[in-house]
């Protein structure tokens, strides 16, 4: 009962970005997608979301899903690219359910969107326009939009990048809770390996244009892999209470 990606090949022009990437993401769990800059994390997420043409297959519960269907059913949250427009945060969230919106918006939908904003600590900003909030608040608003879609697969590109420590935790907890509550796979591209080591149940590590390894955090996050993939010396400890801490020491 998982998302299974097989032999995904993506190229920009003639330059291959991903060569035969294969990995799985379990239902109800948070999968962290890690790898250095330029290793293809964003490309992989976009290809899975159906936003880029790619060879290979993306299956959920044994069903091969076409690009159009993935675009309709999955949620993809891009890295913050700004959104300088005077739509209110509530309106931005409502846009997540584009297909369900008609001339009038059912009150139930509005209250569901408002409840979601409340859960992410944005209730007071619901009627503020998106161009007048901070980068972190904007990021949260778009996370709310992605969750509001109730997608069958949740794909997030660096969801914690612009956030303070407290909100990083809020976001990852909300994503985990959503994945667990609706029993869907959630995949988040992440740079903070300690955060990934604590919040993710499963980690997919990209390197050299392919998936280097996937598995539980303590299996993936090793000193050797930090040297090989990230080209750094790092202390890696498995916490007694669960989770892995990665402390970078120096670049090689």
């Amino acid at each position, binding site marked *: 009962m998982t998302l299974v990606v097989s032999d995904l090949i993506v190229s920009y022009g003639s330059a291959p970005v991903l060569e035969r990437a294969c990995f799985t993401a379990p239902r109800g769990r948070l999968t962290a997608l890690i790898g250095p800059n330029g290793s293809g994390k964003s490309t992989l997420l976009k290809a899975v*979301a159906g*936003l880029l043409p790619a060879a290979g297959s993306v299956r959920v519960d044994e069903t091969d899903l076409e690009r159009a269907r993935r*675009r*309709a059913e999955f*949620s*993809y*949250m*891009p890295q913050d*690219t*700004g*959104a*300088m*427009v*005077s*739509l*209110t945060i*509530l*309106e*931005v969230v409502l*846009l*997540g359910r*584009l*297909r369900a*919106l008609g*001339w009038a918006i059912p*009150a139930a939908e*509005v*209250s*569901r969107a*408002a*409840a*979601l*904003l*409340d*859960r992410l600590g944005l*209730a*007071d900003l*619901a*009627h503020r326009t998106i*161009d007048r909030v901070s980068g972190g608040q904007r990021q949260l608003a*778009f996370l709310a*939009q*992605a969750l509001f*879609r109730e997608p069958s697969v949740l794909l997030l590109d660096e969801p914690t990048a612009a956030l303070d420590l407290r909100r990083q935790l809020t976001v990852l907890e909300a994503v985990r809770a959503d994945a667990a*509550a609706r029993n869907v796979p959630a995949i988040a591209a992440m740079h903070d390996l300690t955060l990934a080591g604590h919040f993710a149940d499963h980690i997919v590590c990209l390197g050299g244009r392919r998936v280097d390894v996937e598995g539980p955090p303590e299996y993936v996050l090793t000193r050797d892999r930090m040297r090989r993939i990230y080209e750094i010396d790092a202390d890696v400890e498995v916490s007694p209470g669960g989770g892995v801490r990665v402390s970078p020491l120096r670049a090689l």
Partner: protein
Amino acid sequence: MDRSVAALSGKPAGAVARYRSLTARRIGLIAAAVVLLAAVFVADILTGPAMLPVATVLDVLFGAEGADRTTVAIVHAIRLPMALMAMLVGIALGVSGALMQTILGNPLASPYTLGFSAGAGFGAAVAILTGLTLPLLPDLTTPLAAFVGAAMAAALVYGFSTIRGMSAEVMVLAGIATLFLFQSLLSMVQYLADPEVLQQIVFWLFGSMLKANATNVPIVAAITAVGILLVLPDLWRLTALRLGDQRAAAVGVDVTRLRVKVFALVAMLTAGAVAFVGTIGFVGLVAPHLARMLVGEDQRFLLPMSALAGALIMAGASILSKLISPGGVVPIGIVTAVIGVPFLFFLLLRGRRRYW
């Protein structure tokens, strides 16, 4: 979701009520604009070089018996078509401008940005220069030529843009190149034309409602209605597009398809608006900004408000065009350009809030 239900009694419920009142306010503003437009439309019919008494015109307009035939003819054959045409062109340009600003993601975009009206002007000028007349439809020759010119401009922009993936930036560049191309071709035609032909061309280029009649008003009405009806299913997708291509795609919008469709509709609406009455500047640029300031970016409200704002500006300009020189009618295209620019400055400088 379990926690959200419990929380509904608090802040989210307030947010829902506030959203509802915001929606009610926007609908109220649109209703007010409709009422205002009705009033200005009647005022437009009441004014004119013939200086007819207000009571007489109202009698004729509302079907009272006993008015003399000249008055009936002036009201029904001249003033009514002119006022209707001004309103229709305002609606078409207001909607086109809003759509153009949305698909190009650019506050300076207008129905004319991509060279449609330059193409129309060139088409009309060629028809006037060559003295071409269609056998069955002599009166429609120049408008048809203008329509064809606009379609050529649209095809050129589309052709160039598809090569590079139909992004907003490529469309603007291709559009500006097309605009300059057709302006140059138009200058060429004007240079080649004899003085009296040149005068006809220049008169065509100044948008004027004096060209409105019982034949072309229904045609413009039909084109405008079809264009607007075809865009209605895409209002939410257009609102999502305001978040940027990537974010719109992320919520399921086929951005390229939407852009091509709306581009074609704007070409049609703009060509329909300018083919019969000539070029009318700034309405398509100003009306959407005014509308955005009043009702925000949600296209369910922005598009109707842009249409109404366009119609109001045109009806107001139409009244002014008849008052400026007593006994005559200044081409409305000149009036809209003269009042449009300061109005735009006023809109952009007013208040602390940004509307784009």
